[in-house]
Structures are given as structure tokens and as C-alpha cells.
């Protein structure tokens, strides 16, 4: 939906050049979109590519997402770069919970998308980070090239400005909990 402009309200022509009309949501999205602060959260090999994106050649700062913060409390996007293991999963969840709203998650790399190369015999690897935290952007590759990560950022920014960030994402954590709840309820009913 296009944003309303001053013309839509048939203002006085005098005023049209000096008044900007828009929705508050749009302004907020615009601000958010262009100042994403990722939490520097490197887990494994993919983190090296995340570093490359922050460094000289690719320079994510050009897209307004270069302020890597060490603390989740200061950031609004989490790039889960690397393999999430069962030992690490509760910590990933805690970091996510510590981030202030609105928050976004990019699942970087095949490992976080669905277990990646370790999906079959890797007993200690979580088969997709969306089993732990809700994910906004899935970025496949092992490791994804820096260009791909930049693209993921662009996609996320697009999403934020379209205000769809919160509604579209697939929340596997919730689904899993729901499933278990249903299973438990079913079990009780049967018992």
C-alpha cells in the first residue's frame, strides 16, 4: 500500500510544499530500517563471513547496519551465524529474549536454516534455529557469501519498511510448543 502524501488530503497548495503527511508507523519503520544494529554473535564458520561483511571490502556500513554491538540489549537484529548445538540452544534463546522489541533474526547458513551438513548424523546439532527462536530471514549457503548476507539485510530492511516484520514470520517455536501442548492434551484425553 502506498503511503499517503500531502496531495491525498487536498491541502492548500501553499501548505503542500511545507507539510509532509505520513503514518507514524512508516516513519518508525524508516528509522529502524536504516539503523539496524546487529548483535555480534558469531557461532562458527559463518561468523567469519559475517566479519568479512563488516570489514574492508564489503562494508555493511554502507547499508546502515554496521554497528555491531557486543550486547544483545543494545541491538535489534540477531544474525545467528553458525551451527546451533543443543548445548548452545538455551543460550541463543536467552540472548534473543534479552533483545528489546522490535527484534529481527537472520538465520545465516545452512546449519541455522535446517541443520545443514550436520542434519543427519550430527547428534548434537539443532536441526534449524527456528526450533529455538523465530526467524525472519533464512539465508542458505555454507557459508553464504558476503554478498548474500548483504542481500539478506536488504530483504530485511524491505520487510521492515513494509511493516510486515512481525506478522509474516513462521514461528516454529510456538508451533512446537503448540504441538506438544496438543499432544499432552490428547494424551490426557486418551488416558
Amino acid at each position, binding site marked *: 500500500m502506498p503511503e499517503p502524501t500531502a496531495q491525498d488530503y487536498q491541502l492548500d497548495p501553499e501548505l503542500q510544499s511545507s507539510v509532509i503527511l505520513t503514518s507514524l508507523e512508516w516513519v518508525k519503520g524508516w528509522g529502524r530500517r536504516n539503523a539496524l544494529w546487529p*548483535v*555480534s*554473535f*558469531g*557461532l*562458527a*564458520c559463518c*561468523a*567469519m*563471513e559475517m566479519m*568479512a561483511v563488516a*570489514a*574492508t*571490502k564489503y562494508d555493511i556500513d554502507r547499508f546502515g547496519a554496521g554497528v555491531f554491538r*557486543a550486547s*544483545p540489549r543494545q541491538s535489534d537484529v540477531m544474525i545467528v551465524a*553458525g*551451527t546451533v*548445538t543443543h*548445548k*548452545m540452544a538455551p*543460550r541463543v534463546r536467552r*540472548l534473543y529474549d534479552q533483545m528489546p522489541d522490535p527484534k529481527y533474526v537472520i538465520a545465516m547458513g545452512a546449519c541455522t536454516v535446517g541443520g545443514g*551438513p*550436520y542434519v*543427519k*548424523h*550430527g*547428534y*548434537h*546439532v539443532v536441526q534449524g534455529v527456528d526450533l529455538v527462536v523465530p526467524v525472519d530471514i533464512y539465508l542458505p549457503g*555454507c*557459508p553464504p*557469501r*558476503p554478498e548474500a548476507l548483504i542481500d539478506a539485510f536488504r530483504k530485511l530492511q524491505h520487510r521492515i519498511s513494509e511493516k510486515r516484520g512481525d506478522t509474516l514470520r513462521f514461528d516454529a517455536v510456538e508451533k512446537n510448543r503448540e504441538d506438544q501442548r496438543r499432544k499432552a492434551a490428547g494424551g490426557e484425553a486418551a488416558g
Partner: protein
Amino acid sequence: MSPRAESTSTGEVHEGQPLVGRDLRTEELVFNMGPQHPATHGVLRVVIKSDGEVVRSLEPHIGNLHRSSEKIGEELPYYQWLPYVDRWDYLAAMNNEHVACMAIERLGGLEVPERAEYIRIIVAEVQRILSHLMAIGVYGLDLGAFTPFLHQFRERERGLDLLDHIAGARLLYHYVRIGGVKRDVSKEWIDELEVFLDAVEKRLPDYNTLLLHNHIFQERTCGIGVIDREVAVRWGVTGPALRAAGVSWDTRRDAPYSIYDRFEFDVPVGPSPIAGVAGDCFARHWLRVREVTESVKIVRQALGQMPEGPVMARVPKSYKPPVGEVYVRGENPRGELATYMVSEGKDRAYRIRCRGPSFSNIAVITEVSEGLLLGDLVAMIGSLDIVLGEVDR
């Protein structure tokens, strides 16, 4: 007297040293560093018991990146397992592949063509240069210097492009295969490589001005986190950390694998002539810088000697080495990588065990970090240059 005061580069006790280290004891505090911490190089978690600013004892907790590659090795055929090897030490994928392929080849008694051996050495040494560059830059980052990081990434990207050209990937290559390497290198590639080597040699003095000869850097690293010879050997520390402690051992020279015995190169040994004592953070950093030069030397020699010929031996489609075991070690940028492999005559290994150098290198901090200041602990962990993928495998 606090250990820090004892070991500053000039040997004098500074004003304002914490009293607690000497006689006054205050309440101890237990806290947690990591797994999400920029200075732990990944997902290392350290539980620190501290007295004010002074570390009393600490315990590393690892396993947050345990990806079960040994189990996978028992389930998949050798050639399918090789890509997992890259992911042990993801900053030194070529070196990992080299050692793993040597182990698999030695199990079955495979001979590798001459040219392939040379290409393996070349890519392994280029990888060592890249890995050390990263270590140098990130160490600056740990100590609060952002500029060297940006500078080294310029050269690193060039090198990554080179490997990208022959392997098709930037980080994890799967280029060294059982019986040789995937593809031959072209004349143009070699020219590019020479340009890269020149660039690295030209830029190294710049990095040294930024870090090695920087007074602040020296103050932060000289005499800090000393791992002496006896402790290093007892804990099984290898690689630059071992050599910085004064042990002249480099697997490439002393137990040469592949064709390393055909090259001339120095093995630098700590302490650094610039400043500091043997086995301190400064010596380890200095040693990495020196090793970059040595690797450049090796690559140049290899380029000069490289013969023409095939790059792949004839390997049967289903490669089944006879029953037996091997233990193969090689010098990785971080230390000695070793693989123990047991074959039962099948197309997959019966048991694979990898000895990652970082695994032993990080264990030593339980002993040597006692009495360090908290800020120096970061300097200490950074100077060991661990990669968690290899600690946990």
C-alpha cells in the same frame, strides 16, 4: 606482589598496582564470560573466580560447538566425510584437508602425484598466511585497536579471492581430495599468487608499525600471560604458542610430512628480540608475524620447483583401504593437527579421532591465568588464537 607487577616489560612495579594481589584479600566474585562475548573468539565460556580485578581461578567450558564430526566420519564414506574436515578449523580449511587426506591415503598406501603435492603445499601455506593475518588483525581488535583489522582484511580478501578461483568457495574449499587435488592451477593464477605474496610482504611492516612496534601494544602484551616451556609441553600446547615458549619444534621441519623436507625455511623461536620474554603474549604475536614471512618463502620455493604433470592419482570409485590404523600429524596455523584413523576394510572409517591443536592450547589457561588482571585475560585468550570449531569439533 601481584604477578602483573612482577612481569611488566621493564620489570618495575608501577604505581597504582592493585593492593589485593599483595596482602589484602577481599571477597571473591564468581562470574561468567561468554559464550557470547567478543573476546572469546566464538562460543567459549569461561567461569572466572575473581578477587576484584585479579583472576583467582578460572574454568573454561567448551562443547558449545560440538558438531559430532567424528560420528559422522563413522557413518559416511571417506570422500563424503572430507567436507566436514574443513569445518574443524574454519580458518585453516586447506591445512585440515591436507592432514585428513594424508591420513586416508596412508591407510590405503596411495601415492599422490608430485604436482599435486606441490599444489597442496602452496594452498596450505597461503591458507596459513591468511589465517595468521586474521589472527594478527583480530588480536588488535581484542586489545581495542580496530585499524589493523581493517588493514589485514584488505590482503586477506585478496588471498580469499585466489583460493576462490581454484576451489570455488571463499572459506571452506573441499579442494584437496583423496589422491590429489580437485583441479590444476593455471599460469595466470600463479601470476596472481605472486602479486599477492608481494603485497603481503610489502604490507607486513605496516601492520608491525600498528601493533608490534606500538608502545601501547607492547605495554599490554609484554610479560603478560607467560606460558613457560615446561608448562607448555606438559599441557600439550603446540604451534606458535609452543615455539614462543622457546621450544624449537615445527612438525614441518622436524617430522616432515608431504614434501616439506624439500624447502628451506626458518623456524622462529621465542622470545622476541623486540621486547618481552619467552612465552608471553607478545612473543606469540611476534611469532605469527614471522611465520607469515616464512610461509611466503615456502610458497615461492614451491612455485619455483613445481613440475608439470597430473594432479590426481587413480583412486578407485569405492575406496576401501585395508584393515589398519594410522596416526598422522601436520602443522596447522594453530598447532599440530593430528588424526587417528582406524579402518576395518570398509569404505568408511571405523573410528576417527581428531586432535585439534586449539583443544590443548585452550586447556592451558586454567593453569596460567591465575593472578592475571581481567583485561589481561582477554589479551591472553586472544594471543592463543583459538578456533572453537576445532576445540569442539
